[in-house]
């Protein structure tokens, strides 16, 4: 074997290896680019939250002028925020209202979806249109007449004002009906042979089998009510019945207030939702993605 032979075989090997090698390198470069772009974009989304969190620990004089990291971590801001408004009461109100509405929406939607997916009856088409109609009628259009209704009922500044208008959901009926229609008829036949009543079939079989749809509806309903602003803002004027969001909304005048304390209050309000979100991210995202199907 001569030297020239060797170099020829090297050249051969080089030519045939260089292509996959460079392609691999290009792929690595693309992944690196995607990775750094992802990091940059993530930063953009997280940055306002990060500044809020850092600001919540700062002293009042350094929040706008000082460095990025607090000179001194002032945990007292959170205590001051908590005591600055009846946040305990606000949280209790929000929790109470959100839980009652969520349980009720799951129940009323399941019942209606059961009738629409498993029964034949006179006037079904018309009743179905009436049940889904609210999807087409935006809540903002109904703000004024509903405000007048709750005044007539004497419900201004009360829990029913926050709860009763939301006890049923057209979206919930739509979502669950889709799910129930996909559940096999055999299950129903089998349970009927075993002597189950329709209600027993609904609660013991149909609902448990469709747990994913029920959980998506629950998380969307809970979050919607927990985060609701405009209706509770209008319907409630007494501190006793304010929800967390309405309570927090009264802090929006930054000028002339203790900014770190306001940021601490905001952090306190965001924290519970964020903790649940971080641990159950997939649940939130999948539920929201399923809601997109309604469009």
């Amino acid at each position, binding site marked *: 074997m001569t030297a020239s032979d060797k170099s020829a075989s090297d050249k051969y090997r080089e030519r045939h290896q260089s292509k996959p090698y460079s392609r691999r390198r290009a792929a690595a470069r693309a*992944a690196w680019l*995607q*990775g750094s772009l*992802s990091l940059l*974009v*993530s*930063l953009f*989304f*997280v940055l*306002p939250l990060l*500044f*809020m969190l850092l600001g919540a620990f700062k002293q009042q004089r350094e929040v*706008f002028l000082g460095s990025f990291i607090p000179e001194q971590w002032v945990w007292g801001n959170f205590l001051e925020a908590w005591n600055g408004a009846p946040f305990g009461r606000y949280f209790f109100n929000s929790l109470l209202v959100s839980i009652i509405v969520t349980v009720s929406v799951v129940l*009323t939607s399941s019942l*209606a979806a*059961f*009738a*629409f997916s498993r*029964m*034949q*009856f*006179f006037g079904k088409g018309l*009743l179905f249109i*009436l*049940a889904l109609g*609210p999807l087409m*009628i*935006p809540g*903002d*259009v*109904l*703000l*004024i*007449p*509903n405000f*007048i*209704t709750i005044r007539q009922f004497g419900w201004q500044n009360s829990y029913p004002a926050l709860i009763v208008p939301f006890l049923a*959901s057209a979206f919930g009926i739509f979502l669950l009906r889709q799910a129930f229609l996909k559940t096999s008829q055999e299950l129903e036949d089998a349970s009927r042979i075993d002597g189950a009543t329709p209600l027993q079939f609904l609660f013991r079989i149909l609902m448990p089998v469709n747990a994913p749809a029920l959980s998506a509806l629950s998380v969307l309903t809970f*979050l919607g009510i927990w*985060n609701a*602003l*405009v209706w509770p803002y*209008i319907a409630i004027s007494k501190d006793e019945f304010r929800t967390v*969001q309405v309570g927090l*909304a009264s*802090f*929006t005048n*930054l000028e002339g207030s203790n900014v770190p304390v*306001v*940021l601490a209050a*905001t952090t306190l309000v*965001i924290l519970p*939702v*964020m903790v649940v979100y*971080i641990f159950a*991210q997939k649940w*939130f*995202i999948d539920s*929201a993605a399923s809601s997109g199907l309604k*469009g």
Partner: protein
Amino acid sequence: MSVSLRRLGQALPYLLPALVVFGLFTYYPLWNVIYMSFTDADFLRAPNWVGLDNYTKMFNAQEFWASLTITTIFAVGVTALEVVLGMMLGFLMNAKTRVTPLLRAAVFAPVVISVSATAILWLFFLNTQAGPVNRALALFGIPPIGWFTDPKIALLGVIVVAVWKGVGLPAVLYLSGLQGISRELEEAAIVDGANRWQVASRITIPLLAPTTMVVFFISLVGTFQSYGLVLLLTRGGPVGSTELLGYYIFENAFQFFQMGYASALSVALFVLLALLAWMQFKVSERRVHYQ
């Protein structure tokens, strides 16, 4: 007939809970808002019938047309950004890098944060005097920008916040759209020598058309009726530059107590949204699906 009537009797107990709520808080108020739009209702006196007066006032009110223009700019701006950025984010979230889980979590996080909290943290972040953004810009010698205080810029400021808060949903919808596309067509195109950009623009994006349509209408309908941010960020100001139709209604109803006029405005908003729904129906009828 009698059998199916009896069956109706069996079905009604299942339907009534929902239908009673809808009757009291959707259908009755819909009728009521239309009725009130023909009256001079306020909180003080019994309402009088005034015929079309409120509608005449509305069509002659400069504020109404201004708020309609602002609402359109806001809705179209936010929708365009949510479609374009949502799609780009969807592509990026579909990559498999070590940062991707972080990206997915970060992009969707604002969706679960409330409007109140969003408003406060952006009022701080974009504060004119010394918010972090303006301070960073000052390092490059850029004078402070009045994100929510300059009439020329405030609407843009609100759009930025709305997109930050809202784009997570379109991104997630695009991500699941992308995951639903079969790889075969893209691979076939690559074998035929198409480059990355050609594959995206000629194959992947057209295949995402159903998702784009859903995102487009969800964003458009959502932004046409969302004014919670404006309520807390700018209160329609400065000098009415962020006066969305929804906020204009809110102001007339709950600050000026002109319930009759505000009802006429609500009916106008309802008609607008019904038009959008009708458009969506027409477009979806034409089928944008490639399957």
